[in-house]
């Protein structure tokens, strides 16, 4: 009984020793790698800050208007974004390198997936960023144009433009990541089809009024103004 117990305990201790001698060096190596990566990340972040500050990149971007394209408040600092990106990239690389020390199937799979997905995620992020900027820009263009033309509900029109552009950006980004492709494609087709139908209806319903206005303008240009009608042409010149 005692001998058996002793045998079991020895087995457990041996296995523990085996595990410790097998995994502890790897764990230590991983921790060291992570620590080195952490220190390198801090150093790189500090260096990027110093270099960008010396080159006055933030001032250049602010004056050139790039910052305001991305952030209306103008509080975005390119130096901070780049420095933090470098910091996290080095830290992430350190974590992945540390995990690769264990050389297990799980860690290998994780690293492979991450390495495979990373470029796609970056591209998808850039697509969303560009879509956001474009949506903002074209939405405002629509807003100002609609106001100056006296069209009804300009803010709704601007919001519609923003939503459509962002939706297109999301569809493209999702396609890039192979995420719910069919769902997004179906939604996109429904949206575009709906917009085309709405435009056709609007054109059909307002076509008569537009035609009447065009004919009136032509008639006025030809000098055929009916009695009682006022000419909206004037000697007033803005310039």
């Amino acid at each position, binding site marked *: 009984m005692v001998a058996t117990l002793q045998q079991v305990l020895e087995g457990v201790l041996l296995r523990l020793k085996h595990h410790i001698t097998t995994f502890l060096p790897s764990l230590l190596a991983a921790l060291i790698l992570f620590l080195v990566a952490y220190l390198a990340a801090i150093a790189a972040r500090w260096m990027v800050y110093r270099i960008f500050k010396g080159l006055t990149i933030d001032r250049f971007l*602010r*004056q*050139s*208007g790039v910052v*305001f*394209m991305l952030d*209306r408040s*103008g509080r975005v600092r390119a130096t901070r974004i780049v420095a933090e990106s470098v910091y996290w990239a080095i830290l992430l690389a350190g974590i992945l390198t540390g995990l690769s020390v264990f050389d297990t199937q799980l860690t290998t799979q994780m690293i492979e997936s991450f390495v495979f997905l990373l470029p796609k995620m970056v591209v998808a992020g850039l697509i969303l960023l560009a879509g956001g900027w474009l949506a903002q*820009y074209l939405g*405002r*263009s629509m*807003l*100002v*144009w*609609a*106001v*100056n033309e*006296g069209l009804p509900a*300009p*803010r709704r029109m601007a919001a519609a433009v923003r939503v459509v552009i962002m939706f297109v950006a999301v569809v493209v980004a999702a396609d890039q990541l192979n995420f719910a492709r069919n769902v997004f494609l179906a939604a996109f087709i429904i949206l575009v089809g709906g917009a085309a139908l709405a435009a056709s209806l609007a054109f059909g319903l307002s076509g008569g009024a537009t035609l009447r206005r065009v004919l009136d303008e032509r008639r006025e240009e030809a000098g055929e103004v009916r009695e009682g009608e*006022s000419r*909206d*042409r*004037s*000697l*007033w*010149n*803005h*310039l």
Partner: protein
Amino acid sequence: MPTPPMPEEARRAAETLRRADVVIGIPSYNNARTITHVVRAAYAGLAKYFPQLTAVVINSDGGSTDGTREAVLSAHVEDSRLLLLSTPTVAAHRLSLPYHGIPGKGSAFRLVFQLAKELGAKACAVVDSDLRSITPEWIDLLLRPILFANYDFVAPYYHRHKYDGTITNSIVYPLTRALYGVRIRQPIGGEFGMSAAVYERYLERDDWETDVARFGIDIWMTTIAVAEGFRVCQSFLGAKLHDAKDPAADLTAMLHQVVGSVFTLMEEYDHRWRAITGSEPAELFGFRFDVGVEAIQVNVKRMIDAFCRGSRELAEIWAETLHPETWAAVADLSRHAHDPGVPFHIEDELWARVVLDMACAYHHHRVGRGHILRSLTPLYLARVASFVLETESLLSAQVEDRMEQLCLTFERMKPYLVEQWNGRAASKSASAEGRHAAAPKTRQEV
């Protein structure tokens, strides 16, 4: 950027003519109705006042489809009833050429200047093709200061209806005067005379493919002449009457191109205007006389409605482009725009602040530049409405006094402009200084 080659047709014409002392340029696009009169006036002016000079009248056309070019070439100009004191040694030549590039008045002028340079012209004058009040004397008044008094640039000076030329009166004249310190009353008048040095300087520049190609050309020409120290004067031309047109047509584009050009040139010449305070009158040639001008219809209610609508809908843009105090005042104005018994009115100081804030927002890219310029339309309409209501019962001379007050306000707000332009946060002291500066001590100084 090198000057692009002239169109083949223009090059052949230059080779045939070889040289000319004087060039008259007439830009056009579908102006068949009025251009004959302009061509005849130009011809008569050259024959009557410069019979000893070789001259060319150039119509630079943007692809008219109403027979403008045919009207130019077939205009009957040998009118025996013209009073000519001396017979011209050679009749002026006449060309009608299509220009290439961006459609617009600026592109048309570019071809005229290229031809003038090619022909070695000593002076060049440009006149609009929709003028109904041009007389042969205009040619004399635009060219004589260049040819015989060593001036480099002649700007027009007209009598206009008090509501005519509202972009000039509300924005361009007060701002240009405050910036560069020279009082050119019609900086975007459309009729100018210039020396070879000036038009060659224009041709050297590389910004022809911008708003300069369109409505921005007039202020661009005037600003360069003033900012680069050319000798500038004005000529009194009488009344300016032009072809009737829809005042709402192209308003936003006009504002965008004209004001955009002013703001862009402010950036280029900021080293010139920063230190300038006050203003000096520009020499005025010609015999001044009073003329009657035709009445102009203005729909004030529509303009105020457009402003209120803009204030409601464009808040997100105005809040970013205008100084917080300016924006608060504008918002307050729109809230009370329809209050019964209270006439709609924008103070000169508020209007000056709106324009200067927009210039600074443009400089600092606070919002997309196109958005800033296009969002100015409702504010501009509000200013026009306020001006019309305020001057309804005033005579032209009294309206000029009001204009002078506005200009002095712009001049006094210059420290505010410089501070905002430099990007410093507007302090309360700065705005107080602006308010104090704009206080009405203007009467004595007028």
